[in-house]
């Protein structure tokens, strides 16, 4: 009888223990990385370059696409892929756009896509991430690191949207774009502001 009672207590306590111990998922919930699709309408890719060594000149690319995986708790699991069509360069002046698409600059027929693909993401100061990746431009692929600001997260039309912003400088001569360096300079500042919706 005592033996049966011991068995009963043992089984019962094990059962209680099992019930009281939450499953591992509940105690340390694994944060799933979320996948986002870039919203081309609310995403801007601008560039700023010197002109005649006298002023700054701005232009934009109107065809941007891409996606990213974002894991706020584990930034290392995040991944970014952005593609910009070189043909979509837009300065509000068709003649200048034509020149920028020519072999003098982006050579858009031969190198139609400007692409950034991250290889490493790590958390920076609060709300910022250091994103290292391969930038392919004008037939050259180079590793660059940019600091991305997590602008915010919100609900829009029943879906989660998220925004990032970064400003970085590219030396265009490192990408084989050597035309007009004396008057336009070699450094081009890129301003990238991304809005993306959860897939």
């Amino acid at each position, binding site marked *: 009888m005592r033996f049966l009672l011991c068995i009963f207590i043992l089984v019962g306590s094990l059962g209680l223990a099992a019930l009281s111990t939450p499953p591992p998922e509940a105690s340390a919930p694994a944060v799933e990385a979320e996948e986002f699709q870039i919203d081309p309408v609310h995403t801007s890719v601008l560039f700023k370059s010197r*002109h*005649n060594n006298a002023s700054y000149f701005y232009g934009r690319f109107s065809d941007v696409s891409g996606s990213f995986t974002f894991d706020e708790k584990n930034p290392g699991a995040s991944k970014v892929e952005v593609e910009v069509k070189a043909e979509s360069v837009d300065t509000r*002046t068709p*003649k*200048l756009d*034509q*020149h*920028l*698409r*020519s*072999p*003098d600059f982006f*050579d858009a*027929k*031969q*190198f*139609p896509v400007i692409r950034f693909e991250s290889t490493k993401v790590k958390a920076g100061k609060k709300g910022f991430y250091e994103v290292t990746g391969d930038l392919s431009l004008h*037939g*050259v692929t180079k590793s660059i690191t940019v600091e991305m600001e997590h602008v915010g997260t919100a609900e829009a039309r029943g879906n989660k949207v998220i925004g990032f912003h970064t400003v970085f400088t590219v030396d265009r001569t490192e990408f*084989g774009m*050597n*035309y*007009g360096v*004396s*008057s*336009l300079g070699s450094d081009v500042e890129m301003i990238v502001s991304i809005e993306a919706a959860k897939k």
Partner: protein
Amino acid sequence: MPELQDFVRGVLLPGFLAGIGLALVWRPWNRAPAEERAPKRAWAALFFAIAFFASYAALFEPPPRPFTGTRTLGGVDWTIWIALVAGPVLFAGSFLGRFAVALWALLAGAVLFAVPRAMVRYHWSGGEAAVWLAGLAILLLLVGCATTGLGRRTERASLPIVLLIAATGLSICAGLTGSVLLAQTTGGLCACLGAAMIVAFWHPRFRLEAADLSFVVLVLFALGLCARFFSELRGVDALLLCAAPLAAWMPELPGLRDRSPLQRGLLRCFAAAVPVGIAVTRAILGFEPDPYGDDYYDY
């Protein structure tokens, strides 16, 4: 906007290199009795190749080396490398007699394979690529045969002048239709042809050999492909530029053959200038200056 240093690097440098090379080589030959003169070699192809590469490297930077994986080469990069290889190869080929034609065919194949590669990869379907490449091969063959055929018939400097007209036309059209880089690159070849023209006036026996002409045709054709497909040169204008060496056959027509060498030479240059002039005029008319007086090459 091209500056004085661009003129020095892109015109004076290649002109000087090609001119000095040709003058030094041709001087002793010209003095020797005819029976002791060495067989004609493609010296111009060799010096043009060196001068053309030097001008591009000085204007911009040496093109990226092929097959290293550091950069995808564009049409202009391939043109510069093919030109640098073609010069010595065609020079060597001028010792080989009939085999020289095979070398030219190989180089022409390299131009058609490498220069419009991006069009095949990104813009043309398989069928379109086959049609385009076949058409371009026929056009290159036609222009090549027309130009080398002229080499045996032309008077003193008229052939360098015909080619200089065609090259200058391409340079102007390329500059007016979107690419100063292409205009300046072509300018290097114009300078080489200008130097050959001066040497031709100086040395009465100077001639551009078939291999020299093949070199010029290959490089001009490759640059024309870049201007047509990667910049905004219109197809009609590209064909008009290709028509220059064909038009230069005009003095061979019955009734004109018996004219004096000077008249035939002038007629040849004038005939070549007509299609080139039309192409350049069309490019000028199509060029819209910026309303603020800041033409596109200033951007």
